[in-house]
């Protein structure tokens, strides 16, 4: 099991509406408290596995195909913070919704940091390879239904307690599935961002003239 020491606060604040003012004292105290609670209650775990390309089961749709262009291998991965975080957020919603919203943001930040950790580990395993960024079911035209494929291929339910429900929502909620492409040749930086994002029409960051970082 890995542990998290610090969470990216500016990222969390962005999820919380990204106000252009500095948080006041009361808000800072709430942030400190919530960050600590997420760190102490999270039980981060991840799994990954190498696949040879081409792979028809993995590649579905043109966006993932473009993403993995030129790659000879792919690593599929999944990560979760565990069920306790979901419960913490659920319970807190009853007594203090404002706090729950902050916990929720930090948990979203935390799961990304866990993925970063997994990605670093993977990159050490493949010296001489170039890696794409993480691409997940639901990005572009990559079907969200692919979640089930990742869960099964990684035996994630048995190994880290991660599954999907019948709507292909990951359970626990603070979890990620993703694929990283590996290429022996340098990878032309893929166009990340709004153009390939299926949230572009409704994105609150975009509407504020900002960018989510994808």
């Amino acid at each position, binding site marked *: 099991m890995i542990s998290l020491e610090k969470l990216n606060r500016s990222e969390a604040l962005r999820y919380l509406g990204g106000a252009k003012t500095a948080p006041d004292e009361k808000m800072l105290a709430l942030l400190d408290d919530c960050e600590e609670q997420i760190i102490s209650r999270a039980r981060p775990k991840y799994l990954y596995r190498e696949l040879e390309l081409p792979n028809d089961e993995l590649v579905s749709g043109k966006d993932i195909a473009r993403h993995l262009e030129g790659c000879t291998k792919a690593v599929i991965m999944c990560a979760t913070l565990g*069920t306790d975080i979901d419960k913490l957020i659920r319970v807190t919603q009853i*007594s203090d919704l404002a706090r729950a919203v902050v916990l*929720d943001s930090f948990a979203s930040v935390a799961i990304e940091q866990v993925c970063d950790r997994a990605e670093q580990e993977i990159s050490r395993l493949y010296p001489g390879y170039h890696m794409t960024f993480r691409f997940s079911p639901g990005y572009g035209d990559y079907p969200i239904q692919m979640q089930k494929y990742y869960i099964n291929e990684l035996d994630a339910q*048995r190994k880290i307690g991660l599954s999907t*429900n019948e709507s292909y929502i990951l359970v626990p*909620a603070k979890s990620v599935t993703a694929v990283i492409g590996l290429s022996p040749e340098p990878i032309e930086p893929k166009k990340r961002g709004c153009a390939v994002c299926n949230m572009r029409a*409704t994105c609150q960051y975009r509407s504020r003239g900002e960018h989510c970082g994808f």
Partner: protein
Amino acid sequence: MDFKTLLKTREFVLLDGAMGTMIQKSGAKYDHSPETLNITEPKLIQSFHKAYIEAGADVVYSNTFGANSYKLENSGYTVEEIVGAGVQNAKTAAQGTGALVALDIGPVGMLLEPAGSLSFDEAYEYFKEQVIAGKDADLIVFETMTDLYELKAAVLAAKENSDLPVIATMTFEKNGRTFTGVSPASAAVTLEGLGVEAVGVNCSLGPDELEPIVAEMTRCTDLPLIVKANAGLPDPNSNEYSIMPDKFASCLENLLPYGVKIMGGCCGTTPDYIAQIKSMLVGKSFISCPRTADTTVCSPSTAVEINGPRIIGERINPTGKKQFQKALADHNIDYILTQALQQVSGGAEILDVNVGHPEIDEKAMMTAAVKAIQSVCDAPLQIDSTKPDVLAQGLRCYNGKPIVNSVNGEEKSLSSVLPLVKKYGASVVGLTLDENGIPKTAEGRFEIAERIVSRAEALGIDRRDVYIDCLTLTVSAEQDACRQTLEALHRVKTELGCKTCLGVSNISFGLPNRELVNSTFLTMALEEGLDLPIMNPNVASMTGAVRAFRVLRGIDKNSAEFISAYNDAAPAPKTDSKAEVDIFSAVCSGLKNEGAAATKEMLKTTDPMTIVNEMLIPALDKVGDDFEKSKIFLPQLIQSANTAQECFEVIKAHLSKSGGENVSKGKIILATVKGDIHDIGKNIVKVLLDNYGYTVVDLGRDVDPQLIVDTAVKQDIKMIGLSALMTTTLKSMEETIQLVRATKELQNPDGSSKCVVFVGGAVLTKDYAMKIGADYYCRDAKESVDTAKKVLG
């Protein structure tokens, strides 16, 4: 020989090792899942079973771990075919050897409510199908379970659809919990109650790491234990496991003193491991290990051993509470949850749940309440109803081992309630009254207690699980009543050896300073041996009396619990703090107590509606505007909304006192649609609507379309808000809207719809919202309020 006889007559029962490892080593190829090999390569599967039997296995598990209809979807085979073939393969291999065949069943593959959205009943159906398909096996084993609720559905499916003996094992992590947080004690207590033949652990850890888990299990159960561990951890590169057969067997040897009787291997083990265990066991005898824990009730994560006084919180009960009754009528589950959390923080360790009210469907409400409380609260529950069918419902959907409140000495009660207690493995409160009412004397009550205990024991319910309530009567009406109650309690405790419980606060009815009388009576009862006071844990003197008693009696070792309860207790918040800020700035800064105080102050001089229209609404508009302009963060908006809510409560209380007009501007249903479990956005909308004066009927998340429509019809609600976060759940949003439109009761005489539907959620667009038939698309909580203003005024 059948399994039960095997268990009784043998010192040890040897299980097989891993099936998956054998398949992997053989290099066999399969299309969909390893279970399909039962049909495509029966000889191969039979050869694995044979190898285990030759190595000494008394029982082999069929190759059917994931053979349920969810996992077999798209495999081209039915559950009946795969399970039937799997059991048949094992039987063919076992023929003539005396080995038995266990129908092997693993988790469904989806998480159950509340973490996931698979319902208890749906899980039951998956298991039922497997149990029926595997009827030719000698026993049923459920293994690698991480969710106690799923395992309960599985065991019930087995018990209700088969006569085969059942054994069950769960998978624990290094921290001593399963992925979903189940403790070994809770697993042992619950499963023993449900009537399995043996409990234990499999998979996940090596046998060298299992000692603390096995020790905790055996402490709370008389059942023999099962250990079917992994061969240590796999090497990520070679996939070889770290513990060799001889080490594996010697680790198991270390676990024998904990009452381990049934052994085998999980991932990474092979026939060599089984052969090693067999030779390790030569000449050894089973070490029986009866429980040392006292009677225990539990939720999945928390086992409460009744080895000293434990407080049962009484507040979840509508009797005599207008607000509670209204909450029930409005299906306001949050109200109940707040009561639950408050009691736990006050010091309750078990919560009584009573939702009996003439205007509601008590069965449905009991289910909803039990599930909702268990989703946020770890305290075990006491299912409280006068109706056996409501008790049955509560017991079925409860996760863990609950208490039933109650049975009494009447024949009708004994014969209807006790079988339920037995079936679901609960504890039960026995009231010392019968057809003739409450006996006046201690002797009379003791006799009824004896009768209840003997009837319970006749059904196989242990007397340690019967908690006798000698009934508190009002001392102002009859002064001797107190003495009779305490004497009966003392006799039940010492002569019957039963635990006792008592509702405390009745004693003081009709007297002044009731709290003083109550806490004195409580202390007296504790001294006579009261184990389970049923009381209001939020009365500090009462909870304090129990805590102090535990210290003085030496139950609370080193006064640890007492110190942690009182050491850094914050000074009580000033309830009547003088207003220092005005309402407007209290709302803008999100200061709840100050806002309430300022409202009280202002009500002395100002008309309530003026406060609402000239202070509260403008303040809310300002923070809403600030949020839109990125001047404040989301939690600040919510804190402001909560403060406004607090002010509204003060105004409502004032109005109901002075009999003034109702401030509600109309009712709105909110729900996150079926299949979707993200509800934080919906909850933010709720807070804002609440505080603009709308009455929100919050149906929660993963809500069935029919419930939404039924609620709208029943409560005559004209506005429905639906939320969905995922593209995959937009479908159920559309279905919900279609159902609303198709419901006759929600149409005007001209066929147009009476209900306005507004929708929101991250993946929705205005176009899509219109396409699926919504009336309004709301980008955020603020827009929902604007829409409500437009529609309801």
